[in-house]
């Protein structure tokens, strides 16, 4: 009887360890795929932007909505560059959980109206390390016409998932956010526009 119980416990222990390893592998693969798909999109996006720069597409100052480039069936508003984290990431025009697996997504606003909010997964090659940013670190957003909006970090804080009013129209010119480790809060990086 004791022997049977010992074997059963060992089996359950092995199953738990296997589940942990499986989840670790799944996260690793998802992380790797996210980095790969972002890199592929970035190449297409850079080509699209350089084409728009050559054509000198005039931006409409009355249009608060950002221009969108269609790449592989998804709309993109530009890309975010965080030199200190060595990141260049495309930003999709709209968000969904499937889209977030490939690239950061616009959650709210527009760079033209200085209230852009970008959300991304905490993959190591997406927004996984934005919590390490410090005030005065610089980052850039480049729109589809090649216009570069430069920002500096003003603060990094944690907000609850229900605190939507702390990311929308807060007076911050740009906000990046992602989940913290447990997914119970959101890490918000608040930035102001550099003229």
């Amino acid at each position: 009887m004791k022997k049977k119980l010992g074997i059963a416990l060992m089996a359950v222990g092995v199953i738990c360890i296997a589940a942990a390893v499986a989840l670790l592998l799944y996260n690793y693969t998802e992380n790797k795929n996210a980095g790969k798909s972002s890199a592929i999109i970035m190449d297409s996006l850079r080509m699209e932007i350089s084409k728009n720069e050559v054509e000198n597409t005039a931006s409409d100052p009355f249009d608060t909505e950002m221009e969108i480039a269609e790449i592989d069936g998804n709309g993109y508003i530009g890309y975010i560059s965080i030199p200190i984290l060595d990141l260049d990431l495309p930003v999709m025009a709209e968000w969904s959980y499937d889209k977030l697996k490939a690239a950061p997504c616009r959650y709210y606003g527009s760079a033209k109206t200085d209230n852009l909010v970008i959300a991304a997964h905490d993959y190591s090659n997406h927004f996984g390390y934005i919590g390490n940013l410090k005030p005065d670190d610089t980052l850039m957003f480049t729109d589809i016409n090649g216009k570069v909006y430069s920002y500096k970090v003003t603060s990094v804080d944690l907000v609850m998932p229900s605190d939507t009013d702390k990311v929308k129209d807060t007076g911050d010119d740009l906000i990046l956010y992602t989940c913290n480790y447990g997914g119970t809060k959101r890490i918000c990086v608040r930035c102001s526009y550099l003229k």
Partner: protein
Amino acid sequence: MYRYRNLILMIACITLLSFMGIAVFAQQSAGIELNVVDSEGVAVSNAVFRIYKAATAVQNQNGYDFTWDTDFALNGMNINNLSDAYLPVHLAVYAQSRDIGYTEVTTDADGNIVIEDLSLGAYLIIPVSVPDGYIPPSPFVVTLPMRGASDGEWSFYVNASPKVEADRQEPEKTYISVKKEWYTFNTHPNNVKTVLLKDGEIVDSIVLSAENNWYFKWEDLDKNHCWNVIETDVPKGYEVAYDISEMTVMVKNIEINPDDNPPNNPSDDSTNGTTKPDKDTTPPDQLIQTGQLRWPIPFLAITGLLIFSSGWAMLYIGKEG
């Protein structure tokens, strides 16, 4: 029966004549004559202007109703402000930033331009270039027909005399300031962008908010140029109007009834708002879940090791005992 036939014919003739009258009126032609002179009254030749048709006029019982043409429907100003001195400045930036059709005309040796056979409406006239040594005039709007200030009569042929100033090349400085006013019973946006125009070109922008007390002043501006401030990003649900006092531009945002929105006003929620997910799996009052499922990994690993160890202990330590 014969008598009725005559009556029917008579009614038909009257109806036909009435419609012909309307048709004749609808085709009422009008025109604009520009006489461009400098401050000394000397004619300025080779000055180039662009003419945009911004609105259409339709006669009513008391005069004429103007409505924005489709290309100008989203400019953010009220059509009833056609006489607003700042309207042409606002419309000029709007028109030049969009692919809107226009007619380009040049003054002759006497500084004249005559444009005929125009349909009734409001015409935006923007200077494109003036000969060297002159500063271009500000854009202006001509309505066809235009009511005479003294006699109240409607003129279908309008004469306008935009004046160009000689470029004094003096290093005089000026300033211009902008102040924001909200006319709403609800909460208004936290900030709004206004742009500085130098001879009609955008050269700077400023975000007005409570932080700067909704006020900003540009100083040390070259007095030889024409400076204006307008709001390009008119918040959704508002109209913009301007009041100018000395060198301060008061930018007023007046809340409008949603039912009064102009046609083709983009009303999709993605415009400057929260973008919609493809699958609405997160309640709208929640931020997106952007984390990978990591916390179970150490939990499962440690629990698994503990359970495995206890099973192993039970099996082998017990055996040895």
